[in-house]
């Protein structure tokens, strides 16, 4: 049996750093493109990863984006140290946001991030502890099995 090829990457994300918001997702995009993944799959992952990255920047203190790319799926973990989410069901609703005014002035905080992540991923799970932090687990299945 041959060993399954798997690639793991891990990028730190700084909370509150709006100037660099999106940079990590752009780096992840490049990795996925270099691995030759399908454009439509890359798009879904990158859009979801960017929303997750932004949530760390906006709502948490610090965190990271990890990805594991396997022949049949891509998994992403967005982990942060932050306030946690009090009511996950509510947070998942379109339009629900706790983003403060100065963040909304920058064009974020429409309350569409988590719903958009759900739309673009094949599986999504939120683990959160108030006062400690949040971990978002996402899975994306390859539309075509890669060799």
């Amino acid at each position, binding site marked *: 049996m041959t060993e399954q*090829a*798997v*690639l793991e990457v891990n990028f730190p994300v700084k909370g509150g750093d709006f100037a660099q918001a*999106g940079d990590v*997702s*752009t780096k992840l*995009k*490049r*990795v996925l*493109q*270099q*691995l*030759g993944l399908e*454009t*439509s799959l*890359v*798009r879904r992952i*990158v*859009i979801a990863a*960017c*929303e997750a990255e932004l949530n760390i920047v906006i709502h948490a203190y610090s965190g990271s984006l990890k990805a594991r*790319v396997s*022949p049949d799926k891509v998994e992403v973990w967005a982990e942060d140290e932050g306030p946690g989410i009090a009511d996950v069901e509510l947070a998942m609703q379109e339009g629900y946001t706790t983003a403060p005014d100065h963040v909304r002035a920058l064009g974020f905080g429409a309350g569409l991030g988590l719903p*958009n992540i759900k739309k673009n991923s094949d599986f999504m799970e939120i683990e959160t502890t108030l006062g400690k932090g949040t971990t978002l687990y996402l899975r994306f299945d390859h539309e075509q099995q*890669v*060799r």
Partner: protein
Amino acid sequence: MTTYFHSVRLDESKCRGCTNCIKTCPTEAIRVRDGIAVIDSNRCIDCGQCIKVCPNRAKSAFTDERSAMDGFRYRVALPAPSFFAQFRSDIEPGRVIAALRHAGFTHVYEVGYAARAVARAIASYVESSEGPFPIISTSCPVVVRLIQVRFPDLLKNVVPLEAPMEVAAYLARAEVMAETGCSDEEIGVFFLTPCPAKVTAVHQPVGQNKSRVNGAFSIADIYPEVFHLLEKVDEVDPVRSGPVGLNWARAGGESEDVNLDEYLAIDGLDNIIALFEEVELGRLRNLKFIEAQSCPGGCVGGILTVENPFIAKVRLGRLARTLPDVEFDMSSLPAEELRIRQDLSPRPILSLDDDFSEAVRKMSEIDRLMELLPMLDCGACGAPNCRALAEDIVRGQAQLKDCIVTLRQQSQEDHPSGNEPEDSVTLKEEKKR
């Protein structure tokens, strides 16, 4: 593998391998190998940045010779809107058009006039489109090629319409045939170009099997001749571009003509790349339309123009005031002549290997090499930065010993006697243990 036509070329006899050009290339298409620059034809998008920065004038733009007109009974000049901005503002466009008719052309058709039709078509396409947004203009061929090689996911955002030059060629041919009763083959159509990218668009059009334009002459080449003719010719031809059509020569002019609310007009390749990265992250969905021009300031900043782009822009403003507004008569143009006839296909350059496991292996190898490289991005190895060298190495196009910094460190640390290490990777690994 497909070989692509390129206007941007290298004169090897002039190249001194100075590495100035490799860092300015937006697609990392240039390497210096054995002391001479090499352009990767799959990656080059003909933006001409390397022509601008080469201190030895080793890079140049191929444009057609005037003899390309020989043998055509009717010869049509298609001046780009930027052409008119090359002349002093007291020289009205009508005189320039008349002078062109004395420079070997039998007819002149203003691309700025055809642009009016393209603007109407873009507006109705965007208004009836269901996305994906933002929709991106095709008027600058550098931008279209940039998307093909670096942002293949955005190809579906590209407006499936011809650029004004192609539409002008169709309209010019129709007009000359109607006027003279000649056949299509008797007509030669020649674009007066501000940039090498349009030359490439003529000789290897994207999204279309064959261009209706027969050749492209550099504005810089034809300018002196027309300038001298202006002294002799005192005719004034009618001008159809109008102020709005003429304004396509500068960044923002197209958007004004298209006239939509949620648009962005952006110029300069670095700005465009940064914007497209954001679009790919899904962050600009509220934007409806992007006009993007590779050259700073728009086509007046094209490298084959003669006038300073800032002066040219001021002139456009003055000229515009002298011109009557002419609306384009859309009934003269069948809708299918505006549409790009073939799919824009991606030309992705990023994938390390078609085989996933192999790509993963190469990716890990790149990470390992990045630990060894100095991360100075000095360019001395001939690659634009350390990461590009690492990628070249795993693709088998370079070796670690091309990095002189690593090489020197290794020979100093491990071989104080001065023996050349054969392979510095193994040496470094030995040292780590």
